[in-house]
């Protein structure tokens, strides 16, 4: 049944997110081309006659603007993906659709798990698409950036991919380890964000009499803030400890503490979501 639920959820999400990401890829390709073409126009001003200089400057400016706009669109795609996944969770369980979903012959645990897996898979796909686009865009923008290095703003492995190609991964085992660690942390972070959102909206639906969605949004911000405070407090404690132990040890402890807190929070949020679905939901 879990497989059927997952398939249903993934298909429903794909109906919206697949076209969105195809558009994102299309924009990424166009923007990369615009980046290369816009830069390559330099020195071709004779081709455009008397006003060639101005035309080239205008076209190059437009290409640079398109590149910047594409970066913004990529950010929007990430936000939209998360919102679509959470909206699907809320609508499918707490709106009228819940009358169908919650009377299926499945357990509450299976319902939540299927939604977590389908949402997470789409968030991973989104991350791959966006990072792929960022890699090609950064290559396309190279001409414009000149001395301004992008190395400081992009992950090292991503720059490795964009400049040396996929082959560099096989040659350097440290890069592979960094890549795996980065993905593990990213997926845990995604899982945490997803489950906090699911829990917030489940709590909003179960506890609020009116404005359940607004309550869900408020709870999401609140829980995220509390989490930030807890992690911040632990980090401050560990920084104070730096006077007594080595910095490497502290940095490792910070990273481990954050991962452990997130892992615990993920399990707690999942269990609470299941409890709320089973015992506290009253569809109106």
């Amino acid at each position, binding site marked *: 049944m879990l497989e059927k639920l997952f398939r249903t959820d993934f298909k429903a999400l794909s109906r919206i997110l697949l076209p969105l990401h195809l558009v994102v890829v299309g924009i990424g390709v166009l923007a990369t081309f615009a980046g290369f073409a816009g830069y390559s126009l330099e020195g071709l001003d004779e081709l455009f006659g008397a006003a060639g200089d101005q035309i080239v400057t205008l076209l190059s400016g437009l290409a640079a603007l398109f590149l910047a706009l594409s970066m913004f669109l990529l950010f929007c795609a990430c936000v939209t993906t998360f919102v679509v996944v959470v909206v699907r969770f809320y*609508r499918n369980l707490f709106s009228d*659709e819940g009358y169908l979903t919650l009377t*299926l*012959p499945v*357990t509450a645990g299976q319902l939540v798990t299927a939604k977590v897996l389908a949402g997470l898979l789409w968030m991973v796909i989104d991350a791959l698409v966006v990072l792929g686009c960022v890699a090609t865009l950064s290559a396309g923008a190279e001409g414009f950036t000149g001395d301004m290095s992008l190395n400081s703003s992009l992950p090292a492995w991503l720059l490795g991919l964009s400049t040396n190609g996929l082959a560099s991964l096989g040659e350097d085992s440290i890069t592979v380890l960094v890549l795996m660690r980065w993905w593990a942390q990213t997926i845990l972070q995604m899982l945490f964000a997803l489950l906090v959102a699911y829990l917030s909206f489940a709590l909003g639906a179960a506890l609020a009499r009116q404005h359940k969605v607004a309550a869900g949004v408020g709870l999401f911000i609140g829980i995220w803030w509390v989490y930030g405070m807890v992690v911040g407090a632990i980090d401050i404690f560990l920084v104070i400890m730096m006077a007594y132990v080595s910095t490497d040890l502290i940095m490792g402890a910070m990273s481990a503490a954050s991962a452990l807190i997130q892992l615990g929070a993920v399990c707690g949020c999942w269990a609470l979501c299941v409890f709320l679905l089973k015992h506290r939901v*009253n*569809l109106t």
Partner: protein
Amino acid sequence: MDESLPVLECIGLTKSYGAAPALRDVCMQVPRGRIVGLLGPNGSGKTTLMKLISGLLQPTCGQIRICGLTPGPQSKAIVSYLPERTYLAPSMKVAAALDYFADFYADFDRAAALDMLTRLGVGTAQPMSALSKGTKEKVQLVLVMARRASLYLLDEPIGGVDPAARDYILDTIISNYHRDASVIISTHLVADVEHVLDDFVFLRGGIVERCAPVSFAAEAGYASLDDLFRKEFRC
């Protein structure tokens, strides 16, 4: 499954929302092969009882047994529930709804559903958003009645539809339910449903006031069940 067990048994069933009780100490049994009218004015607890039986709500106290099972995944597999609301997503096509039911319910008879939809003139390629409110309700009824369930829970199936549609809905219920199954129809439109009912349950303020065969109305000297309902629930 033990065939001697009643399809539905409620024992001391109570449901409260905060301090306000919606159902109080409900005790009732529905044997196999009966069509039962769950009758009462608005706010009498009909929908709450339906939700409890379908597993959408948890009782505050008391017990529910569906063919001997407490509400859960196993009982949901043998209960076919039609809520008051339109629960199919607007973007969902009729064919996708058929696939969905076939996927999750082992007792779903796709051929029977297609046959009913054809007679209704509803194409399977249409999305739910393209259908009128009445047709959406009929499609949901078709999906629910195309299951070979042990218990059908129909919450206000004829509320808000025209008299011609009411006939279609009641005909669909009568001609499609499995004879070993039981049907519970909740409504306050007593006159429209009384000719299809075997038994009735009167609910008032969350309390079962009367639970009897429909013939009781005539035996007690009332012109019809509707007449009895109007006299008992006169404001």
